[in-house]
């Protein structure tokens, strides 16, 4: 184990090179629906239990299954209404289990990126070959079912190894959602030296963290989203930032929650200088226009 993951250098928020998003937008805004499949009786990982209760843990399983049966369509209708294309953090086995969902996302030109095979299969304990096989399986599955190259990664159930980023970059990926250290994209060190970055995916705005971990009230979540946006929109005048709302059909789409979320979405998309986009578009734009300058600035400040 290491003291520091070694993935990025300290790089203070002030006095960075200016990011100018397309059309002069201040905030690159993206929404990341997690479309997940949890197994009722998954293979056992010795480092993490899948369910708190003995199999079948129908409460945990049913909670997640609700997202696919009920929540997904409700969320999609809401995003459609405000012209938001989702960037899907996908349990890629869902392509096999629920192709109807994949089809609806394809029709809307949503982005698909890897969130592992199942959200009940963890990276812990895997050899390098095993983790590579899991990553390649997900990348191939996304390509086979959607025609898309998988650009982004959010580790299944946020389970990582020391080489997760290295392996994903080698499999063709260009960005990770697993790091929560910044409000702007930042370069990430990978052993191949490829251009690979972190795109902010806010855990603080993540509905599961909000509802399950922090036990926030639905209307307060709406207020938090607006406050988060207001400050980023203000700061984005000087230097472009990213705002992400990660969602789950089994959390935000419940009937007592979706309205407050919708109001926040209406608020954000009602502002003129917002680039409503996807994770991949942010990453490609950043790598093309901002990456080299960022690396030079980080290097200079590190040397200073």
């Amino acid at each position, binding site marked *: 184990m290491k003291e520091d993951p070694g993935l990025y250098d300290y790089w203070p928020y002030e006095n960075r090179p200016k990011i100018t998003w397309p059309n002069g937008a201040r905030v690159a805004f993206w929404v990341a629906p997690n479309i997940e*499949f949890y*197994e*009722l*009786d998954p*293979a056992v*990982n*010795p480092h993490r239990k899948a369910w*708190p*209760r*003995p*199999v*079948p*843990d*129908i*409460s945990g*399983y*049913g*909670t*997640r*299954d*609700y997202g*696919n*049966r*009920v929540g*997904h*369509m*409700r969320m999609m209708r809401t995003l459609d209404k405000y012209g938001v294309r989702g960037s899907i953090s996908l349990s890629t*086995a869902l392509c*096999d*289990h*629920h*192709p*109807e*969902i994949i089809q609806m996302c394809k029709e809307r030109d949503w982005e698909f990126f890897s969130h592992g*095979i*199942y959200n009940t*299969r963890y990276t812990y*304990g*895997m*050899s390098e*070959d*095993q983790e590579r*096989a*899991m990553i390649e*399986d997900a990348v191939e599955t996304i390509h086979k079912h959607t025609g898309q190259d998988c650009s982004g990664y959010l580790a299944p159930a946020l389970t990582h190894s020391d080489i997760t980023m290295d392996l994903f970059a080698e499999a063709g990926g260009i960005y990770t959602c697993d790091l929560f250290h910044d409000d702007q994209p930042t370069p990430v060190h990978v052993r191949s030296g490829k251009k690979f970055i972190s795109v902010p995916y806010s855990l603080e705005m993540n509905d599961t963290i909000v509802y399950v971990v922090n*036990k926030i*009230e*639905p*209307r307060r979540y709406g207020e938090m989203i607006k406050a988060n946006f207001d400050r980023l929109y203000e700061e984005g005048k000087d230097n472009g930032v990213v705002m992400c709302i990660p969602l789950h059909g089994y959390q935000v789409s*419940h*009937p*007592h*929650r*979706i*309205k*407050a979320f919708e109001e926040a979405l209406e608020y954000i998309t009602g502002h003129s200088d917002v680039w409503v986009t996807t994770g991949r578009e942010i990453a490609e734009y950043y790598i093309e226009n901002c990456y080299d300058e960022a690396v030079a600035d980080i290097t200079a400040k590190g040397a200073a």
Partner: protein
Amino acid sequence: MALDPSYLEYPHRSYGMDHDRYDWSMLADRKPVAWPDGKRLALWVNVSLQYFPLNQSGKPFAPVAGMTTAYPDLRHYTLREYGNRVGIFRCLQAFDRYDVKPTFAVSARLAERYPYLIKKLVARGDEIIAHGWHMDAPHFGGQDQAEEATLVKKSLQTLREATGQPVTGWLSPSKSQSSNTPELLVENGVEYMCDWINDELPYNFRTSAGDITAMPLSTELEDRFIMHANLHSESEYADQIKDAFDYLYAEAGDQGGRMLALSIHPWMLGQPHRIGKLEEVLAHITSQDGVWSASAGDIRTAWQAAQ
């Protein structure tokens, strides 16, 4: 370091679910459900009347809302008893005031202990469903099959004798099941169960003993979950239920009948400072003409007729 190679094998990775209990389907894709008299929303108010023994074993897991201190936990024992002695009567008044038809999920042991209460409910004509033996008698994966079979049988027998009703609905303590529970329920004449929370309408569930209806009783909208687990305020509870109702009522206008399943506990909402919020919620819901307040069994029957 490596995991067993089977960890990267996915035997159920194919169309539909990873088990054969029910078919995969999305709510929005189904044939719209029409409730009786053209109503838009079926209101199912499920009242859990629970018995939590003082000598809780907590095996293999402690019951939801059970004892927490060292023995004797008089604190939680009596807080839960409050619901069966006092809170329930406030709830009944609220239901009558707003002409709401409740369904009662009763621990069989409670029916043995408090026949007065059961007689009162039976005289009202309300439907009673089984809520297991008591809260410390869970159904769970790995449970001895004969032990569980006895538990199901004696729970239903006790409640049927105490109520004179056929008792065809079931809610497991802590909504926990073993892999055999659905079979045991069917074998014992149960027609619907409320433990699976993966949907907002009833759906068909397969067992080797024949089909049973799953009637999803929302946990997220439960009084205990919102105020006891999440520690949201009484006012927040009312706001959340009203928001849920408004959303489902509107959605029913576009997509066909919806069901609002409210799970409540007299030990929670029956407190003097909370009962007003139940009344506020019921007033809000029943102010709409398109609401059909019905027992769980009647909702299931209407759903079946609409298939």
